[in-house]
């Protein structure tokens, strides 16, 4: 039930959207009303989904009719179903009605553009527009809502400019008709068009539009100023109108098929509506569009505002739901329309197009060939289907400095399904700075890596997902002479470590960078406040001046103080005049204490503090060194990943996941074998005996008994034979063994150890065989009667020997 309801809704939605498409028409015809800037033409692509193409093609056909040179219709018409090539009587009838309607219309409104009612389809057959729509429910949840659905359709469409933007389609009308083309309700529609050439001007227009969509008002202004559109108000376009009411749609809105964006009906860029249609009916807009679409009232049930073509099918307005079963017509309503028509109760014939089918592959591929390029003003967006590029690239945005798109400003590349979790690569061409962004899950917990070159000891900024790291590292910045690390959430409260390096000392035996690290000149470490310690014992910053053999400490400031204690240790060990090592002298520790304390004055305390710091210094140096190594490692890993660019495949992706595929195939093989075995076990015992009898006749009782006896005796014989066979083998083995034993006893004295070994191994093998044979024999003896009984039982129950049962019954 649920599914059904959804389907209905789906269709309704589709209807609404279709209805919107009609709206597009209207606009074009109102010449005075400037038409939307957008003008789009479509060419059919060959190998796209046929359904879509067909639908789209209808629209196109007018073009081809008028301008045959323009359309490259590569569809193989011969494969299309009959409904594409011929019209059913109902359709013929409908076309007549439409013609009639059109005549009346042009009579009543001579100043308006002729209606777009029945363009030729790809088979050059006129089809009424409404019948080109066929509400369909697709199995993809993504297509269930309008936004993602519209996005999908827009991805699928490729814009090809018309040769003449003002000379559109309609077949027989001589009036200036702007070109237009309709898009199916997004839900059931996916169309693919091969992109052909794009005229620069139209690119410009499109770029403008896109920018408008992105609300880049300024640029838009600039661009528009630069190129005022000479055809403003003359272009024709088709789009989708979604009426409010169903599926929680709060108000009417437009969807532009090329971008998949929605617009309010108040939007200024939609200049007017000529007509609307869905798969049930066709309406002409009778309202004045002087104020764009802002004043339009989308109450399709109001015959004054919306002239309908087929009466009765749509008596209601927004609530399209109720129109489900057209059936009822009110004579009164008809008046305006069907003067002499007999079509009062005429229903829209069933759609002639085939149901759309989108394979999962096609759905995933989205765009024709899985690739789509959109040109914007000063920018180019390229999209690819996932897995199409071996490096996982799914889209790339290139921004240019100039309108001609020659000087690249920056490039952004988005990736998907990368094993190294690379998500976005940002290349700034002016600074040459590259920044890689990663998702959670990189083996080194990378988040962001920006660099100019992959060489170590150049400028690198590496950010990490600190929760994924044991050491809580957030960020590490490296330059030729420094390395800075930022930490968070460490148990030792370290927040910052900065190392300065000196120029590398040249070693005679230098082999690689690792074996000759840059000498560390200075390490600065900062700590967060450790609330467990009193402030005057909690170090805020310590500086190891490695070269000067000095250590500076700065402590945290107490809450009620404004100065902080500090301490400086000079740690060069000296030898006094007598040659004894000076352990500690008061001048080796200079301290300033906010609140002088007694125990810190002690040399012992200072000595211990210094020893502690020396150990810490060693540790810190080691840490720095390890960090350097880690940077090298990361860079190496990144290079490898970049070179390998492996893609991950979800285990649910049965198409691509080799492992699961193999597994599945193996399972299938096993199933198959199992099946074969089962078939084997079901061998028909009776077949050879039945074959002796004349076929097709029912067995007599006598025959059945004889058959059974024969079968059983045959089986008995076979069991006996088998037992004999095993017995014979058993005896043969035993004899051989005895012979061998005899031989051995006779020749025992003269045998070499090798021969003896040989003999022994033979014996053990023979014994093994004998034992097995013995076991098999025993088992056979045990099972034979059972098998015999089982067969007998089976034969009794065999339907072909039904006579037997009668005997016993």
């Amino acid at each position, binding site marked *: 039930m649920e599914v059904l309801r959804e389907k209905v809704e789906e269709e309704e939605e589709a209807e609404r959207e279709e209805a919107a498409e009609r709206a597009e028409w209207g606009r074009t015809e109102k010449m005075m009303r400037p038409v939307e800037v957008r003008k789009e033409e479509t060419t059919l692509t060959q190998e796209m989904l046929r359904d879509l193409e067909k639908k789209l093609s209808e629209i196109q056909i007018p073009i081809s009719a008028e301008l045959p040179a323009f359309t490259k219709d590569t569809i193989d018409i011969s494969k299309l179903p009959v409904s594409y090539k011929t019209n059913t009587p109902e359709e013929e009838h409908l076309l007549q009605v439409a013609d009639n309607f059109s005549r009346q219309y042009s009579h009543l409104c001579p100043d308006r553009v002729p209606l777009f009612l029945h363009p030729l389809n790809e088979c050059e057959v006129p089809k009424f527009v409404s019948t080109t729509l066929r509400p369909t429910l697709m199995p993809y949840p993504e297509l269930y809502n309008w936004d993602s659905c519209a996005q999908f359709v827009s991805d699928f469409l490729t814009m090809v400019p018309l040769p003449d933007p003002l000379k559109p389609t309609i077949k027989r009308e001589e009036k200036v008709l702007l070109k237009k083309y309709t898009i199916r309700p997004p839900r059931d529609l996916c169309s693919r068009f091969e992109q052909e050439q794009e005229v620069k001007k139209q690119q410009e227009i499109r770029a403008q539009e896109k920018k408008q969509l992105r609300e880049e008002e300024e640029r838009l202004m600039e661009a528009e100023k630069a190129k005022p559109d000479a055809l403003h108000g003359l272009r024709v376009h088709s789009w989708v109108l979604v009426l409010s009411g169903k599926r929680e749609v709060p108000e009417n809105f437009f969807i532009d098929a090329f971008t998949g964006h929605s617009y309010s009906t108040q939007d200024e860029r939609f200049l007017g509506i000529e007509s609307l249609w869905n798969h049930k009916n066709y309406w002409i807009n009778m309202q004045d569009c002087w104020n764009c679409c802002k004043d339009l009232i989308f109450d399709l049930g109001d015959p004054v505002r919306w002239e309908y073509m087929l009466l009765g099918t749509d008596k209601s307005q927004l609530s399209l739901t109720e129109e489900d079963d057209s059936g009822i017509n009110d004579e009164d309503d008809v008046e305006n329309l069907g003067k002499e028509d007999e079509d009062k109760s005429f229903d829209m014939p069933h759609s002639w197009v085939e149901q759309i089918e989108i394979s999962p592959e096609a759905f995933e591929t989205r765009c024709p060939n899985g690739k789509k390029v959109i040109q914007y003003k000063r920018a180019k967006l390229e999209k690819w289907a996932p897995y199409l590029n071996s490096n996982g690239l799914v889209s790339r945005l290139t921004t240019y400095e100039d309108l001609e798109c020659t000087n690249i400003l920056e490039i952004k590349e988005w990736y998907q399904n990368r094993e190294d979790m690379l998500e976005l690569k940002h290349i700034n061409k002016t600074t040459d700075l590259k920044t890689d962004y990663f998702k959670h899950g990189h083996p080194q917990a990378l988040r962001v890596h920006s660099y100019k070159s992959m060489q170590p000891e150049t400028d690198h900024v590496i950010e990490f997902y600190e929760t994924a790291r044991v050491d809580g590292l957030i960020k590490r910045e490296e330059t030729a002479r420094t390395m800075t690390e930022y930490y968070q959430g460490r148990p030792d409260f370290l927040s910052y470590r900065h190392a300065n390096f000196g120029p590398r000392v040249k070693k005679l035996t230098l082999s690689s960078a690792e074996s000759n690290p840059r000498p560390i000149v200075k390490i600065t470490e900062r700590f967060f406040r450790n609330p467990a310690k009193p402030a005057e014992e909690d170090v805020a910053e310590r500086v190891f001046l490695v070269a000067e053999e000095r250590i500076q400490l700065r402590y945290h400031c107490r809450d*009620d103080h*404004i*100065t902080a204690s500090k301490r400086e240790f000079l740690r060069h060990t000296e030898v006094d005049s007598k040659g004894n090592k000076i*352990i*500690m002298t008061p001048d080796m520790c200079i301290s300033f204490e*906010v609140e002088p304390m007694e125990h810190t004055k002690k*040399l*012992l305390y200072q*000595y*211990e503090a210094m020893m502690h710091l020396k150990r810490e210094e060693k540790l810190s140096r080691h840490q720095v060194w390890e960090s350097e190594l880690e940077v090298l490692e990361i860079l190496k890993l990144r290079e490898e990943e970049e070179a390998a660019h492996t893609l991950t495949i979800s285990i649910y992706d049965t198409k691509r996941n080799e492992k699961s595929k193999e597994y599945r195939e193996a399972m299938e093989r096993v199933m198959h074998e199992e099946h074969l075995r089962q078939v084997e076990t079901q061998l028909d015992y009776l077949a050879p005996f039945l074959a002796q009898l004349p076929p097709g006749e029912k067995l007599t009782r006598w025959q059945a008994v004889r058959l059974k006896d024969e079968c059983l005796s045959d089986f008995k014989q076979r069991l006996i034979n088998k037992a004999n066979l095993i017995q014979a083998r058993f005896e043969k083995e035993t004899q051989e063994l005895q012979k061998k034993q005899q031989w051995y006893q006779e020749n025992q004295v003269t045998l070499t150890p090798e021969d003896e070994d040989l003999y022994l191994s033979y014996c053990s093998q023979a014994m093994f065989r004998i034992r097995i044979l013995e076991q098999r024999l025993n088992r056979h003896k045990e099972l034979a009667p059972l098998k015999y009984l089982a067969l007998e039982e089976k034969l009794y129950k065999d339907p072909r020997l039904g006579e037997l049962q009668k005997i016993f019954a």
Partner: protein
Amino acid sequence: MNRLCDSMEPRVMDDDMLKLAVGEQGPQEEAGQLAKQEGILFKDVLSLQLDFRNILRIDNLWQFENLRKLQLDNNIIEKIEGLENLTHLVWLDLSFNNIETIEGLDTLVNLEDLSLFNNRISKIDSLDALVKLQVLSLGNNQIDNMMNIIYLRRFKCLRTLSLSGNPISEAEDYKIFICAHLPDLVYLDFRRIDDHTKELAEAKHQYSIDELKHQENLMQVRLEDEQARQEELEKHKTAFVEHLNGSFLFDSMYAEDSEGNKLSYLPGVSELLEAYKDKFVIICVNIFEYGLKQQEKRKIELDTFSECVHEAIQENQEQGKRKIAQFKEKHLSSLSAIREESELPNIEKKILECSADISELFNELMMLEMQLVEQLEETINMFERNIVDMVGLFIENVQSLMAQCRDLENHHHEKLLEISISTLEKIVVGDLDEDLPDDLRALFVNKDTIVNAVGASHDIHLLKIDNREGELVTRINSWCTRLVDKIHKDEIMRNRKRVKEINQYVDHMQSELDNLEYGNILD
């Protein structure tokens, strides 16, 4: 018990012994040399080991204030004493001694590990203060009563217990009994208690344990009630109106008033007394409620004041810190400039500049401080005025309420006198119907006696009321004075501390600069 050392002569814990031990157990090698050179203060020692020294009496340990670990095992100590000062002690080892009773541990609140292994103890007690106790070793003693175990239930942190080698460990269900009564125990006699044993023990002693628990819960509840009452009273006391929320004051008026009690047997007096009491109590409750309300007001006032002062000080500190940070930056760069400078005149000039900077910093900091002092003084004075006003108002209102009490008393007195005299007249006339108690009748000798008696009762009552009023007024006044004094004193302390800090810092900077100068000249 007949240990080898018994035959040796006992030694005294004297200074030499302690010094030796400290020296031996102190830092070694280079640090040891330093330590020797400087000497180690006993109060810096954290751990001390005094085993196998034949000590008979614990003594001379009072200096080891910060001791954490003390080992006195394998001596011949007979009494636990002299440990009162070692309040930081965490680990105490007194095993292998001759101790007979547990005592002298009442100050060691931080003790976690106590070993009394191999002594002569027969009863577990006097451990109440050791709330953090985790490990208790009492093996090889003479504990023979199982009930000692129940005493150990109060140690919520106790996880390890050893009692082997005691008479009770011979008992059949020794282990089960302990497991049942000490469910949080993890190790018994150096072995982990397995879950099975625990379950078994629980099942076996469930009844007695439940009863114990019940009693303990009752006790706990009673204790909490008591505490809650105490807190309530404390709260009333801070509002200076304790015992005014009932008839306490009225009752106390009659507690020492023998005449009054006697007179209450007069006809008609008991009704009078009843009415009097009701009215009196109502006034008392009024005072009480008013007092609580006022207390709340004072508290809010004080909180607001402290918050504002705190904010002001914080703000000031931030400014000071900023100033110092700025100075430091500049100072560091100029110091390094001086170091690099080679020409003497330039150096001198720069040094002069530097010291000018320092004095500039000093001035700035001091100015900030003076500013703060002024601001705070103003605020404090304002607060003082307000709080004194509040207290004054409170006293005034209480006094007026108390006056109502006095009026009531006077009124009652008059009525009583009236009744008394009329009774006297009746007695004199001899037509008194009721029987009066003899001691009451004794008062009705003549008019003077009865008037005196009534008057005495009245005086006592008035005195009680006066006393209560006086107490309240005195206490609130002294509270007020103390509060204001404290605020002033705190502010003065703060100011002195800050000034000292600034001076110290500036002095340090100056001396650093001087040292540099000196060093340069040397160069």
